[in-house]
């Protein structure tokens, strides 16, 4: 068989390359079409891009329903004595949980505000993990990078007084970015110079950051005066991310609609990362290094510096997430304010296929889960930790579309599995 004959067969669906415009005459000119083709990546189709994630989420939620059922101790007790009542109570509990979940995430202005408030740091942290994946690096350190970004931001927040918000807020943002960038640059540098695997280094740095923050919150410089417990000084009003719907304060109680400029920052950052990855020279280098560091070196790219740069930018994104919490929600630093966001960001980035557009969508989904989960915990006593289980299941289904295929008898196209390996290794 002649080698050349192989290319004459029909190829898989052409989805656009970096720009999506393709040779003249292509049909996918709309923004939606372009986004879709980029999300699904080259060679896959709409089924992989949307159907599999959707089914994954639905299946995960169904399985969680089972978990809620199986762990209802009252149900098991009641089964012996009054089975009918037990089943009925169980059914109601499950229905109530789901209803609370949806109500808390999308059921009204306050719910949507909560969702967006929760989504902002998730999107930013997801970008932190995703951009690492694109360069072939596993950034498990978003949690620690958030903590450091938040620390830097809070210091910038309370140190400067009397500045107009137009000056102070950008300073706080910058500080947040810087803090995270430093914490992300360290593993990048170590990986580049010593080959130390960033998975372990970032996990270690997470733990170190937690203790560092605990320590700093007890120092005179940072601890708020007059208190013994570890809380930082507060961020000046001029350094805070403004509430988006602040004008509603006359109509509703102040703390109700919490959504703030952070969500705008997050979307802006996502667009920025998109441009960086697919339109800029350095983004081309990031992706080349991510796919094949050896060829990148041959092409004259400075792989060492690139690993450092990617991790620094990734850390910076996570730092912005931390800053987002400090300057938009809490207005100060307390121990563990990162609240597992950096951790969830990993599943998020995988769900969003490491593409900024996908990460925004996944971030909103995870934000909804968080907001809804809070409501669910309040309404039905189902602990919010269940969300972690949902996330893990979603990722498993995404990463192994064959499982979805097996469950739902859906064809998803051969290329689905290739994609998972491609950017993840």
């Amino acid at each position, binding site marked *: *068989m*002649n*080698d*050349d004959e*192989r*290319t*004459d*067969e029909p*190829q898989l669906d*052409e989805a*656009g*390359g*970096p*720009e999506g415009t*393709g*040779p003249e005459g292509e049909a996918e000119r709309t923004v939606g079409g372009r986004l879709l083709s980029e999300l699904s990546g*080259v*060679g896959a189709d709409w089924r992989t891009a949307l159907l599999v994630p959707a089914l994954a989420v639905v299946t995960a939620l169904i399985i969680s329903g089972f978990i809620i059922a199986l762990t209802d101790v009252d149900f098991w007790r009641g089964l012996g004595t009054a089975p009918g009542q037990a089943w009925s109570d169980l059914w109601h509990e499950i229905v109530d949980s789901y209803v609370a979940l949806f109500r808390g995430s999308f059921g009204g202005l306050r719910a949507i505000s909560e969702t967006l408030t929760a989504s902002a740091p998730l999107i930013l942290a997801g970008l932190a993990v995703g951009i690492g994946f694109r360069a072939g690096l596993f950034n498990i350190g978003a949690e620690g990078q958030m903590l450091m970004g938040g620390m830097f931001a809070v210091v910038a927040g309370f140190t400067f007084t009397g500045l107009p918000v137009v000056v102070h807020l950008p300073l706080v943002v910058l500080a947040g970015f810087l803090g995270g960038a430093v914490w992300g640059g360290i593993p990048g540098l170590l990986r580049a110079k010593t080959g130390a695997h960033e998975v372990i280094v970032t996990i270690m740095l997470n733990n170190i950051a937690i203790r560092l923050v605990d320590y700093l919150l007890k120092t005179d410089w940072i601890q708020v005066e007059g208190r013994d417990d570890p809380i930082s000084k507060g961020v000046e009003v001029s350094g805070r991310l403004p509430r988006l719907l602040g004008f509603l304060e006359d109509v509703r109680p102040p703390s109700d609609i919490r959504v703030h400029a952070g969500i705008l920052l997050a979307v802006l950052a996502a667009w920025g990362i998109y*441009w960086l990855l697919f*339109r*800029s*020279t*350095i*983004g*081309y*280098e990031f*992706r*080349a290094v991510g*796919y*094949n560091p*050896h*060829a*990148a*070196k*041959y*092409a*004259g790219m*400075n792989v060492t510096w690139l690993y450092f740069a990617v991790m620094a930018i990734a850390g910076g994104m996570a730092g912005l997430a931390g800053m987002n919490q400090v300057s938009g929600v809490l207005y100060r630093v307390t121990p563990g304010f990162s609240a597992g966001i950096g951790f969830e960001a990993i599943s998020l980035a995988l769900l969003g296929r490491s593409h900024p557009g996908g990460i925004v969508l996944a971030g909103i989904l995870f934000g909804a889960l968080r907001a809804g989960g809070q409501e669910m915990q309040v309404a039905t006593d189902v602990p919010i930790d269940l969300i972690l289980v949902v996330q893990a299941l979603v990722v498993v289904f995404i990463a192994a579309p064959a499982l979805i295929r097996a469950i739902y008898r859906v064809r998803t196209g051969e290329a689905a599995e290739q994609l998972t390996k*491609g950017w993840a290794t």
Partner: protein
Amino acid sequence: MELELRGITKRFPGVLANDHVDLTVRSGEILGLLGENGAGKTTLMNILYGLYTADEGEVLIEGEIQSFESPGDAIAAGIGMVHQHFMLVPVFTVTENVVLGVEPTMQAGVIDFKKARREVREISEQYGLEVDPDAVIEDLPVGVQQRVEIIKVLFREAEFLIFDEPTAVLTPQEVQEFFGILRMLRDSGKGIVFITHKLKEILEISDRISVIRAGRVVGEAVPGEVDEGSLAEMMVGRPVELVVAKEEAVPQEAVLEVRDLIVLDERDHPAVNGVSFSVRFGEIVGIAGVQGNGQTQLVEAITGMRPPVSGTIEVGGVDVTFANPRRVHNEAVAHVPEDRQRAGLVLPFTVAENMILDVYHSRPYSRGLSMDWRAAKSAATRLVEQYDVRTPSIEVPLSNLSGGNQQKVIVAREFGRENVRLVVASQPTRGLDVGSIEYIHERIVEQRDQGAAVLIVSTELDEVMALSDRILVMYRGAVVAEVSPKETTAAQIGLYMAGATPS
């Protein structure tokens, strides 16, 4: 004993690798299986060895149908295979590699190493395959590793031995030694299948020849009744030019100057140990030598991938000894790397993205921070057409293309630049079909005729002799000979490659 393949058919997605193949091997004979890269020989042998299952057809031994689910079954039936790329665990010893899978044990699965070592020594002596049972594989030279592979096969009492491209890594002298071993195995009653694409060798060693093309057996022959030309024609399906047509070289001044170069390899041994030579405008210099004598490291040093520890490299008078690949590239040096998928291409990138891999950072493709994809695409479209790259579009990932077309992308990218002064091509046609090989050879000669200096490194002596105006032979990190292909024979060069001197 007779081993027969009857009607073997194997399909892969979009490809019919084997099409009703019939083949017979008898004890005490050597069957040569000839076919070019991609013809389906390896697939056939993998079926025979139990690594694949055939879609149709049978394997019979002494008339009995065999069914192989795994190599274990094939081994049990007496079939042994020595692969093209050795299947040896580098960190294990010779003994450990030989007994892997059939270890002699005491109770509880504990391995009886004493017994194992003894048996390895016995086989080694019986067949004249000298080897140290406790040596670690990664420390052994390639020729010795091949002996270990043979002992592995004999340890399992194979009656039929299959050798897949066994001479790729041997010097001409080692090939003769290897042929001696083959003859001894044959005379002791083994049936041997010798797979290769090398015409000279198959004529020399085989008792019978079968030719495979496009998955089908297209001809059989007996050495003595057929010559290289007709074999080549059967192999490729059309008359083949065995010699590259080129005119006399007209070399100008030197552009590449290498002086006293010392380069270390990954294990910090001197792979290049004091090499000096030059390449002039308008000439092709070929570096011949068996894989592993420093050629790879030499090319890496010249192209900026690996800094030497001493010596100098100059291109057009500019010192590039410690320059990185980009700086070397800026001195108008084109590089076709040895391992195209690892070093030359980013497989998940599109054809267009790969086409600008060497120049993406300069105008017009990159302006400041952002990329100009329109310019990139137009350049890619132009080059794809110019260099006859078969691809449905420039937006498909490179992994969709065949090996030959992937190499053409690299060639298009490197040669398609203006004013290339020096071309460094390392194993440029490895693993390619004849059509692509011819094409790339033509492009290389074209570069020379346009005035560039060309440095070719290849382990295929035929290729080096066909293309070069001057040949340097590398052995153990040094240039041991400089000859003209017109005045030297392959046998003489082979002696140099083995470290000897022709009398």
